[in-house]
């Protein structure tokens, strides 16, 4: 039984952290589908081609839509350009940040680093802090007290989840966080996953970000125009909805405190535009199981190992319809979760990690 007697404590320096370390949930050995080394080596191969192509399209679309906003400023014709620019700036930057943070998007390292820093800035994420928080997310995926990137905690705060689509909460968190870090202060939680030798780099990065925002505000004042802020900073509000729509589905409503990504992570089939924006991170079980595989090879990996994975959700709509009743149930009974069923061809889950007594949830 893994039923938790108490409310979950999501602090990274609290009781759950201690429990996760003591029980071996922290830094555990995770389940992997068997893939022959030769095949995996082929899948892991890096190439600059796909990412250069996608990045050129990305930059051209960003610059083009920004030009449209400026050109049609003050008329309704700028709305479609705002829509496109916002999603490119406030949502697709998340997948670029993610893939380039892993270093898998490009073969050439400096290209990954350049895109990583640009995307981090667009997202108001400290590039140093978030590199480390994401490493922790992969070590301890949805382990309570360890994972720094659990988007929806239990019991779920549905208002907070709904507001996430507007970017308001993230904006309210991210900007003051950057300012605090720019003044040289890292929180205890940040220090728990950023090694001491890297902490000064986080402060320097925050100062660069804040300096650019100050310069943007100064430019807006000098020009007596909102345009600089609509192009830099505010897209984090009006363009974030796609990132949240796709990103929430990664783990929401699924098991926590397990060491099998098939139980706590979700793969969802998506339309080609969302897959471009999201850089194939809809194949999320595959990504977590094999983070070395570049985004452009994830569809091939999916085909190779899907016999061992739960059936993917056929659409985002299907996934949200499936998870909604689970969230409502979790409001009363936070141990409840959506158990992903495996096909008969799959290796079974390790029983001790999913035998949570959910009978109380049926009451």
């Amino acid at each position, binding site marked *: 039984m893994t039923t938790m007697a108490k409310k979950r404590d999501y602090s990274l320096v609290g009781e759950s952290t201690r429990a996760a370390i003591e029980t071996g949930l922290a*830094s555990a050995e995770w389940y992997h589908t068997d893939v022959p080394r030769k095949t995996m080596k082929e899948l892991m191969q890096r190439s600059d081609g796909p990412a250069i192509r996608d990045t050129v399209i990305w930059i051209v679309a960003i610059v083009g839509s920004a030009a449209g906003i400026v050109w049609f400023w003050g008329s309704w014709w700028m709305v479609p350009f705002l829509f496109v620019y916002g999603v490119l700036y406030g949502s697709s930057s998340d997948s670029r940040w993610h893939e380039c943070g892993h*270093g898998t998007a490009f073969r050439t390292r400096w290209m990954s680093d350049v895109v990583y820093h640009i995307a981090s800035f667009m997202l108001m994420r400290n590039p140093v802090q978030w590199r*480390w928080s994401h490493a922790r997310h*992969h070590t301890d995926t949805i382990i309570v007290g360890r994972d720094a990137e659990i988007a929806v905690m239990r019991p779920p705060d549905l208002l907070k989840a709904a507001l996430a689509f507007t970017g308001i909460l993230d904006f309210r968190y991210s900007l003051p966080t950057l300012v605090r870090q720019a003044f040289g202060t890292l929180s205890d939680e940040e220090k728990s996953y950023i090694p001491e030798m*890297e902490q000064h780099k986080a402060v320097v990065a925050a100062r660069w970000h804040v300096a650019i925002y100050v310069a943007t505000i100064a430019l807006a004042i000098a020009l007596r125009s909102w345009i600089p802020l609509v192009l830099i900073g505010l897209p984090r509000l009006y363009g974030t909805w796609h990132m949240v729509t796709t990103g929430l589905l990664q783990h929401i409503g699924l098991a926590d405190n397990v060491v099998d990504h098939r139980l706590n992570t979700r793969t969802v089939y998506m339309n080609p535009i969302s897959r471009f924006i999201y850089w194939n991170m809809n194949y999320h079980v595959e990504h977590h199981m094999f983070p*070395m595989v570049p985004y452009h090879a994830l569809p091939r990996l999916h085909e190779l190992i899907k016999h061992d994975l739960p059936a993917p959700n056929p659409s985002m709509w299907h996934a949200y319809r499936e998870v909604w009743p689970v969230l409502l149930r979790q409001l009363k009974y936070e141990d409840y979760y959506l158990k992903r069923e495996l096909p008969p061809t799959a290796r079974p889950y390790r029983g001790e990690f999913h035998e949570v007594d959910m009978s109380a949830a049926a009451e």
Partner: protein
Amino acid sequence: MADWVEACAVDDVEEEDVIRFDRGGRSFAIYRSPDDEFFATDGFCTHEKAHLADGLVMDDIIECPKHNGRFNYKTGQAKGAPVCVNLATYPVKVEAGKVMIQI
């Protein structure tokens, strides 16, 4: 005095690849570079306990399969976050088709 031990046969490692070699409760990684030279390092990443032999060799870099941390496997140098601590390397020689490492 460190001993020379047989780690594997030359043909056990493909060009630009790595294999795992365990001995005496320790784990090592044996590399074959694109220019057909052999190298050896500790088998586990210095960041977290992941077998480097499951990672990807690119030129003179080994990338850890867990968090994509990169090392130069010829020198052991950590190439940046999330790896900050260098990797131990070991002398290697090839004799009669066998890869020997000094540990």
